[in-house]
């Protein structure tokens, strides 16, 4: 067991190294002069000389390539991620830290709801395999799964967005009406109202994946000997499901959450764009459109690191939770 975990950790470390090199190369060794590409600006936005000098120093663009790479890696770990092209007084790390909170709220809340609902739906589907509930949930799940996330957002706006919606329940855009409010309760309510549509969108596109995995895991578990034993000793179907089958079928979810993270982040980019939700996804699109390379580089690093780490953590948690793996 220990050997497997050591191997997984080494692989994660290697992947992080590749991420660093790729991130370095992507933004620096493009055809043409690196300085030119790095400082190429779209339509007329001017970057002043002072700023270019400062950036050149931070990036060490005048050194040979391998020294640049070394410096880049050191800078990455000491948090020297440079300045934004378009908000030149602002550090990349500051901007990202400020937006990250909203993405954490959005992704966190929708993931929790998805897991909770998905496991319930998956469990009922497995129990009623091939019956109406199972088929309906598979069909609906597949329908939402095939949707462009941003389009689902537009449809929900059409239905529930304030103003012209059919049932104007929720605000259409932004993270809150005002940046802050003297009354924390009103503010929290406002934030929740703004969160509703983005979170629902992100939940709907994810839920099929989770419920199908739960369904299949439970179908597997239901054929295990200990389930037969539980039935044989006279437990009701409900008890068998609750006490014996579901807890074991839940185990693979640990891995699924981590694997799902990449998909959710992609969804978050789309959702945040449609609802002008001021998080990292919105920032990614903004930086892509304005070619704000320092920001993109920082986002790329943060997102890839978190996915690698999440996967590693899930491996450890899984090993710790499952005695067959822990002791094996």
């Amino acid at each position, binding site marked *: 067991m220990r050997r497997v975990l050591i191997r997984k950790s080494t692989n994660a470390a*290697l*992947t992080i190294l590749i991420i660093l090199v790729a991130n370095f190369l992507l933004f620096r060794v493009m055809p043409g002069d690196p300085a030119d590409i790095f400082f190429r600006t779209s339509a007329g936005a001017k970057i002043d000389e002072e700023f270019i000098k400062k950036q050149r120093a931070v990036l060490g663009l005048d050194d040979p390539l391998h020294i640049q790479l070394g410096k880049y890696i050191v800078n990455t770990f000491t948090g020297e991620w440079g300045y934004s092209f378009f908000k030149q007084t602002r550090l990349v790390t500051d901007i990202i830290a400020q937006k990250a909170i909203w993405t954490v709220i959005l992704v966190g809340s929708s993931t929790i709801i998805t897991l909770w609902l998905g496991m319930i739906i998956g469990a009922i589907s497995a129990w009623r395999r091939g019956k109406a509930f199972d088929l309906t949930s598979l069909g609906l799940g597949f*329908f939402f799964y095939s949707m*462009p996330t941003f*389009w689902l957002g537009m449809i929900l706006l059409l239905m529930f967005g304030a103003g012209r919606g059919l049932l104007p329940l929720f605000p259409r855009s932004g993270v809150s009406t005002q940046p802050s409010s003297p009354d924390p309760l009103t503010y929290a309510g406002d934030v929740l109202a703004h969160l509703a549509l983005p979170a629902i969108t992100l939940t709907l596109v994810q839920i099929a994946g989770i419920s199908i995995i739960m369904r299949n895991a439970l179908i597997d578990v239901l054929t295990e000997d200990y389930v037969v034993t539980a039935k044989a000793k006279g437990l009701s179907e409900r008890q068998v499901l609750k006490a014996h089958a579901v807890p074991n079928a839940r185990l693979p979810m640990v891995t699924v959450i981590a694997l799902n993270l990449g998909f959710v982040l992609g969804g978050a980019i789309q959702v945040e764009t449609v609802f002008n939700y001021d998080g990292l996804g919105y920032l990614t*699109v903004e930086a892509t459109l304005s070619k704000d390379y320092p920001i993109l580089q920082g986002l790329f690093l943060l997102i890839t690191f978190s996915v690698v780490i999440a996967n590693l953590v899930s491996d450890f948690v899984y090993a710790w939770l499952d005695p067959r793996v822990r002791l094996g």
Partner: protein
Amino acid sequence: MAGETVRGVPGGVPTRATFESVIKLRLKSLWDRSVAFWKVFSRSRLGMIGFIMLLVFVAMALTGPVLTATGLLQNPEQQNLDNQYEGPTSRFWFGTDQLGRDLFSRIWWGSQATLLIGFAASAISMGLGTVIGLISGYYGRWLDEILMRIVDFFLVLPTLVLILILAAVLPPPGANLWKVIFVIGISLWASTARLVRAQVLSLKERQFVERARAVGTGNVRIVFRHIFPNAFTLVFAEAILTVAVAILSESFLSFINIGPADVVTWGKILEGALDAKAIDTGLVFWVVVPGLYIVAVVMAFTLLGFALDEIVNPRLRRR
């Protein structure tokens, strides 16, 4: 091919006559296998639904130019500045956009570029993934280690983030059709590489490969003539599923206005809808219909892909 003994034909150096008969034999066996495959496939009801849906979209893509030329379909680029922002009417079935262009014909035409991007991007990713997977699985050792870490890197990255960053960084600064295809294609190959590698690992230990090696067949020939054909069906099923992902990716790129500049796609029509505030003004068709087409085409490819996978993937096979 010349000068070597052709499989299935006795008698050493092939003459022209034997050569022709070999080709006939090969074609016959290809035909027989296709018929056998179709018999199995047509039993999958969901697969057939996907196949028929796909045929409809292909028909739309192919007939667009003809229908427009004969006047049955309006010119998708024809601006009618007296008829901007119209709801559905008898003249414009799905209404018009900000330039008064007919949405019905724009959506009809949209199938062309959307399918092209889906197929081409999937082909790139299938090619790249297959080559990397073959090399990695066949040669193994340190080359495998390096390639698999690179694959891990691509698998770990959220696809959309990678696509956006490549779109921003790669030249030319603007977006054209082939750049979009390339960017999507090289972002999606990693899972194909994994799949092919796993196949190769099991195939290369089989007897027919050992036999080929024993009679002195070179590595490249073994990989492409003996191993690849056996892994192909799985790759094909995966490629069909990848088309769906590619189409979804393209729709978002178009939606944030960095999609292909010179063609109509459904994502681009949706971008126009967002830009023109069609949601606020209640132009429901403009928002709803292009999205439904995307959902339908993604469903078609997903159903088809799952059905194929069920037939060719030994782990899922129920026969």
